[in-house]
């Protein structure tokens, strides 16, 4: 009990917790859940974007997309490493993802249907992710905070690239291209707003996480911030968002916006989105198809160890 009080005091003082430090079991569990969920999102997120690498319209865009997907794998890698400092192995986390037990960001359960989706994902989805993640750079658990600093830097880069590609299409593209961008915005806008999670009143885990400094800002606060930051960017692009209720509120110095379709939100979270099954199937297939490779690598390493001992 004393330890717990000391822990809480450190948190209150704004101290960072390191892997070797004592921490309450619930704090540890909450962190593992959150970090691994984030890692899984990076891994699953490679699929909808990877879907367009072979069809990128120019070699420059192909290189940018390939590098971005590679970065996402890298994020997955150091987030898994951060979670491993808490005593859960990457294999355990992977197993939880593949069995459907662990969650990942629902946004990746929507399909990428046109090339413009790639730009819009960079702009809106990475934008929303950054909004969610910047506060985590001050998360109380230091290894996670350090990972997030690097992740956020790279995500910002991706977001700018995505926005720039949309700007190119809107400013120099054909009418068909412009229509393609608008269509992509229409499809991704609401799912992007859903990325901030349920409304605060329906978000039971939030309070404890806030107190522990794992979460720093509420879902609804972040969502509002995202809308306020994004609408001016949409104006510059020359696209509209599919929300007739959207209106500048001078009093609040913020945008008012319409209601999220929470039925859809819960349906997709619950596994019935357009691509949930396919995403998990793809990850499971990659894992199953790769079993012989991992087995062989292990067997070879053992043989080498035996040889070295013998020598």
């Amino acid at each position, binding site marked *: 009990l004393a330890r717990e009080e000391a822990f809480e005091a450190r948190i209150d003082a704004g101290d960072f917790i390191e892997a070797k430090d004592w921490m309450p079991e619930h704090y540890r569990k909450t962190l593992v859940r959150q970090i691994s969920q984030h890692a899984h999102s990076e891994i699953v997120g490679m*699929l909808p974007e990877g879907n367009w690498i072979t069809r990128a319209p120019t070699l420059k865009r192909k290189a940018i997309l390939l590098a971005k*997907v590679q970065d996402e794998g890298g994020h*997955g890698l150091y987030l898994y490493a951060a979670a491993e400092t808490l005593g859960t192995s990457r294999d355990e986390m992977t197993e939880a993802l593949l069995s459907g037990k662990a969650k990942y960001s629902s946004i990746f359960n929507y399909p990428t249907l046109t090339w413009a989706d790639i730009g819009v994902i960079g702009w809106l989805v990475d934008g929303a992710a950054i909004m969610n993640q910047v506060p985590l750079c001050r998360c109380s658990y230091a290894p996670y905070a350090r990972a997030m600093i690097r992740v956020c830097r790279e995500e910002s880069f991706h977001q700018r690239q995505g926005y720039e590609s949309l700007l190119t*299409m809107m400013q120099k593209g054909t009418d068909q291209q412009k229509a393609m961008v608008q269509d992509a915005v229409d499809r991704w806008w609401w799912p992007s707003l859903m990325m901030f999670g349920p409304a605060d009143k329906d978000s039971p885990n939030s309070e404890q996480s806030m107190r522990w400094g794992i979460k720093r800002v509420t879902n609804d606060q972040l969502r509002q911030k995202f809308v306020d930051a994004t609408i001016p960017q949409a104006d510059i692009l020359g696209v509209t968002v599919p929300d007739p209720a959207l209106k500048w509120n001078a009093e609040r110095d913020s945008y008012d916006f319409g209601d999220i379709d929470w039925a859809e939100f819960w349906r997709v979270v619950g596994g019935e989105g357009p691509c949930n099954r396919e995403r998990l199937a793809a990850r499971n297939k990659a894992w199953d198809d790769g079993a012989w490779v991992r087995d062989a690598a292990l067997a070879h390493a053992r043989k080498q160890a035996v040889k070295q001992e013998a020598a």
Partner: protein
Amino acid sequence: MDAKTTYVLRLADTCLIHSQRLSEWAGHAPVLEEDLALANIALDLLGQARALLTHAGQLEGAGRDEDQLAFLREERDYRNIILVELPNAAASPSDGGGGRDFALTTLRNAAMAIWLELLFDRLQTSLDNELAGIAAKSLKEVRYHRQHSSDWVVRLGDGTDESRARMQAALNVLWPYFNELFAADGVDGVGPAWDELEDEWRARWATLMQEATLTLPRESAMQPRGIDGIHSEHMGHMLATMQFLQRSYPGGTW
């Protein structure tokens, strides 16, 4: 198209198509580290392809840039070797290239990296300064590819019984296509005939196969002719995908 331009284009297309195939792995590798490594190799090859295509366009002098060459030619005008257009799994020809076989991919990567290392090494001293510069930069990259892929070839060849069997099967499939690595003519002052690389390549390959406990198949008389634009049936399907946006949205700016 003159011999010099063709010479550069064969290498450019080979890097381009090799990269395109590798990029199909994104998100589907057997371990996360290999997702990163395969993407990295694909990116390096893409960079090499871009530099070489740009240079080929300049040599041609018809005003074509890297994208016009990469996306707006007909299949018969691509000059890559067939080896790199084969699907990532040793599937049937009209299979569309859906599968991914890490054994075949790894073996091909190793074969290509050894070959590119030998070729870029020689091209460093090309009298074509642009080409020499590209080669010098690329050489560093393919050295890493060769090291990484060779390590995996040994690991998988000398791993489990299953992994050895898979590697041997992949080797048997790829083997006849290796012939094309030595098929192109050289151009005086620009670059060597590819067959000048053959002895050294075969020696290195034999060493690697031995270390990986794999058996070299008997010599094949097959004569793949991708470098003359006679491709496999896989190429058309690959290009339909690759060219899709440029063909469907003519005049677009991306």
